[in-house]
């Protein structure tokens, strides 16, 4: 288990704070199935780089800059369009941090909503057929 308590936090260049997160112990075998599934995929039109443990992301669409916390970075990195958000939260966040699934999922939804409003994450009810290529990568 790591520190920082699974808080899904983003900061953008307009200094808007992102999701909040209560700190609780994650129950074993969390209720991923109880959530309606969402699939999230990173947009190809962003730049990203890790800087001192935090992920920096900039949207080419509106040039908004975001800094993701360690937890948000885990979700970002797992956003392949095929893994359900609930599974990402359960396996990447709850197993890594001391946080209850319900709280982590609520934070993750707020995070996804914020990034998708800037076109940085694509959200779907269906899994992508296959992972989309990054710009410049051969499909």
């Amino acid at each position, binding site marked *: 288990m790591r520190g920082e308590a699974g808080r899904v936090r983003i*900061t953008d260049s307009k200094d808007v704070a992102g999701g909040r997160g209560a700190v609780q112990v994650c129950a074993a075998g969390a209720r991923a199935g109880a959530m309606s599934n969402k699939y999230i995929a990173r947009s*190809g039109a962003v*730049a990203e*780089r*890790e800087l001192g443990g935090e992920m920096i992301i*900039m949207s*080419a669409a509106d040039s908004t800059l975001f*800094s993701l916390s360690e937890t948000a970075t885990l979700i970002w990195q797992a956003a392949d369009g095929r893994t359900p958000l609930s599974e990402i939260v359960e396996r990447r966040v709850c197993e890594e941090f001391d946080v209850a699934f319900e709280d982590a999922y609520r934070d993750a939804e707020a995070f996804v909503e914020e990034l998708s409003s800037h076109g940085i994450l694509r959200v779907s009810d269906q899994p992508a057929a296959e992972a989309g290529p990054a*710009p410049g990568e051969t499909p």
Partner: protein
Amino acid sequence: MSLMTEMNQRALRLGVPLSVHFDLTYRCNERCEHCYLDHDDHGEMTTAEIRSVLRQLADAGVFFLTLSGGEALVRRDCFEIIESARALRFNVKLKTNAMLIREQEARRLLELGVEQVQISVYSHRAEVHDAVTKVPGSLGRTLAAIRLLRSQGMRVTMANVLMPRNRGDSEGVRALALEVGAVYKLDPTITPMMDGNTSVLRHRVDASELSNFFHNPHLVGDVEEFCAPPGPVDESVREGLPCSAGHTSCYISPYGEVYPCVQFPLPCGNLRRETFLDVWRNSPQLVEVRSIRAKHLPTCSSCAHLGSCTRCPGLAYMEGNMRGPSTADCEKSFVRTGIVTAGMLARKAAGAPGLVQIRAVPQLSA
């Protein structure tokens, strides 16, 4: 504190080169009269070499990547290089004259997620712009490309270099930028050539034109604030860094040479012989550049403008001493505030001609 400032401070603390300006070629399809480059190809890096450099830059933590030239798009592999850069998730900005951008190229730049394109426009009048570039019809082609890029939703900055030839045209270019939805940027800086040749400095504007620029609220915002006398010089100012060159940013030439900045031609290493991180971390030249604080500048540390001067260490280097004053920046500080700088007084004491002189910069020794 803005996120960008926080990010820069973190990069500085960690020694990460956050921004790199990478010229892919010095060749160009224009011959701008004020250009600081030799346009012959003296052995540019190959596509494979550039891809290797890009991977090294990504591994070193570079986020902002400016691709430029010369004219970057004269390289047949330019789009391959941009694709590679975007696959490595850089924030890519392209500086170009846009002469080679047609509909297909404009669409491709957008698809690749290039964040913005900066395009040089010298005047809204073809006879002036084309006289600067020495290419008849160049303004028409450049403007057509700008409109195409904007119609696709690409962010465009129109960079307007201020020179005697286009004196009085900045308002026209600004209106053009407004009309097409581009950002307008005016730059009064003319740089000596990379080999130290100062002949292009005849294209620098004089003090009266600079004064017009500094007192135009459309260009500088709040004129009173912009032209205010310099604030007190305290310990934080004396401990300050001259600029980001060599600290969180650097420049790479088409031949793999690394410099602190495109405007600071101090050779620090070559990526054909060394890795980028080796050069970035261990180059004695970069280590020296990083050691310099404002308090170490023999003339400028006693100057009232120390905290607000835009002193460029690269321009100072091209005048012979990276710790010395930059004549052009002394003039800017003086014209902005009416307060004489320490560099101007030192030149007067040394018998240099003219209190305000921006043309007679000594030639850089070979």
